[in-house]
């Protein structure tokens, strides 16, 4: 069984059909790329999967369970987390603070334990702090732990965003344009990171991207969406040669 199944998902929005009968099966442990010209509906798809909007028709199954209609914070507990376009951060909070906040699901705190500052609360806080510092170390951000997230370099911001998504311990990561706006070196580092997340942590990754080099280089399979419909699906080599895909991108500099 596929870990994430998108079954005939249609999303209508103010008279426009943003998504039409999208069928995608995501296998556990794979890196799936979703590409398509701008406005094709890719972020809308992510919004539907992560629960920010509801599909007009269709089902979305995570490990066989329909997650349509659940709140985003419930869906992430089930095991699907997403990052956002641009930077996925709390800008005015320090880097360490960002990761600490991301640990929200780790031993959720109770109201009175928190208010009365009990031993169990303090222990949890200490654990979270240590884990967060460790994460910052691996990102090479330990020296910037007290710097506000909006003040660190863009490449680091994106890494931080992904790290925050990882702290939720979700099995499926939906990454929205993870290398957008990055220099070639940064993009390369990010793709390495994505591979590491898959092989080292066993996560499943679905990413939306415009950067063809990245997509072709890191994805096991690719799905192409155009005008809200899936027009092609397959391995990178096959997609590159697909006439429909080429036509969809005709006139753009994207391929």
């Amino acid at each position, binding site marked *: 069984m596929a870990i994430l199944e998108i079954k005939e998902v249609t999303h209508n929005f103010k008279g426009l059909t943003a998504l039409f009968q999208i069928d995608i099966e995501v296998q556990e442990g794979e890196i799936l790329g979703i590409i398509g010209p701008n406005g094709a509906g890719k972020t809308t798809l992510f919004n539907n999967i992560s629960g920010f909007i509801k599909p007009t028709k269709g089902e979305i199954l995570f490990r066989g369970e329909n997650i349509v209609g659940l709140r985003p914070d419930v869906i992430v507990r089930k095991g699907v*987390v997403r990052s956002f376009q641009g930077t996925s951060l709390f800008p005015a909070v*320090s880097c360490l603070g960002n990761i*600490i906040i991301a640990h929200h699901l780790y031993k959720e705190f109770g109201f009175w334990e928190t*208010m009365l*500052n009990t031993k169990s609360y303090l222990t949890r*806080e200490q654990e979270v702090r240590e884990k967060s510092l460790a994460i910052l170390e691996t990102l090479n951000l330990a020296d910037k732990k*007290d710097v506000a997230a909006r003040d660190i370099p863009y490449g680091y911001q994106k890494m931080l965003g992904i790290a925050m998504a990882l702290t939720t311990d979700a099995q499926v990561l939906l990454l929205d344009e993870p290398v957008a706006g990055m220099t070639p070196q940064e993009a390369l580092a990010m793709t390495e990171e994505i591979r590491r997340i898959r092989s080292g942590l066993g996560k499943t990754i679905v990413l939306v991207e415009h950067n063809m080099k990245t997509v072709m280089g890191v994805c096991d399979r690719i799905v192409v969406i155009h005008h809200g419909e899936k027009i092609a699906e397959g391995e990178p080599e096959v997609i590159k040669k697909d006439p429909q895909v080429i036509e969809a991108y005709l006139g753009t500099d994207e391929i």
Partner: protein
Amino acid sequence: MNFTKRNPIDSRLIFLGLFIVLVLLPVLFPNPARVGMFISCGVASVLAMGWLLILRIGCLSLGQVAFLAIGGYTSAILSQKLGISPWFGLLFGGISAGLIALGIGLIFLRIRGLYLAIITFAFAEIVRLVFSTLEFFGGHGGILEIPKYPPISLLGRGTVRFDSPFSCYYILITIVLISGIFMWRMDHSALGRTFRSLPQNEDLAESLGIHPLRYKVISFITACFFAGMVGAFTAHYYGCLYPGSYSPMHSVIVQIQATVGGAASVAFGGLLGGFLMVMVETFLLNVDSRWVLIFYGAVIILITFVLPEGLLSLPQEIKKFRQKT
């Protein structure tokens, strides 16, 4: 705000210092009018602290006094019609305010931004209109002859009477300290951390497992509960209630007091703003009451341009200024 460099020892010392000062105030300045002013300061502080707590979640509450009114009316009516002791009235005032805050919070706090601020204002006006129209609440004239606090007998040592500002002050200061410590603790804990994440990036918070509405409601209920409690206090202290004293202007004044204090700390900003502004206001009232409005207006304009983060940010701003020159 830095979650990593917190120094709780400093804050506890400050609270201890404040406790001592607040307890000694009426002893140092026993003039009844002065003590009456300190009581007003305390009331304003609780409202200002609540306003700041609500600001944490990104909501501008333009209707704090509505909960003051709800608490006051609840306690007044319970004591007049059901003979419930004003001591319990404090609790019931807070509870009724909290329950109503829960109800409307669940509905309204889904809305974001300026629309939410406008709705808090609309709600406050509805409350005021209801209280000033319905006969059950005494209509325009309000409620009069509300029972004062009955004496407490200390076993074997006589009774403590509460018919002077002096003794009532200590009731209020207890409320101020309890609410201050409670809201301070909330703000500095993981709860406060979660509150702050919401206005910065609510979608992200949600995608990390935070249920935004739950936290917004917690902040809202807390602030309104204490506003209701202090509202109940004022009803029995002054002995009467007038719907006119819960006008929109008063809510704006809460905002100004809180802003002047400083948003950096919910408890200290609220206390500072409340005490300072009411003291100046009282002084001006003695000179000429028409100055009060101009004063508040001028202050908020000045603060907005010169010190937008309030007086608590003064040390930081001076440091920044020195670094520049």
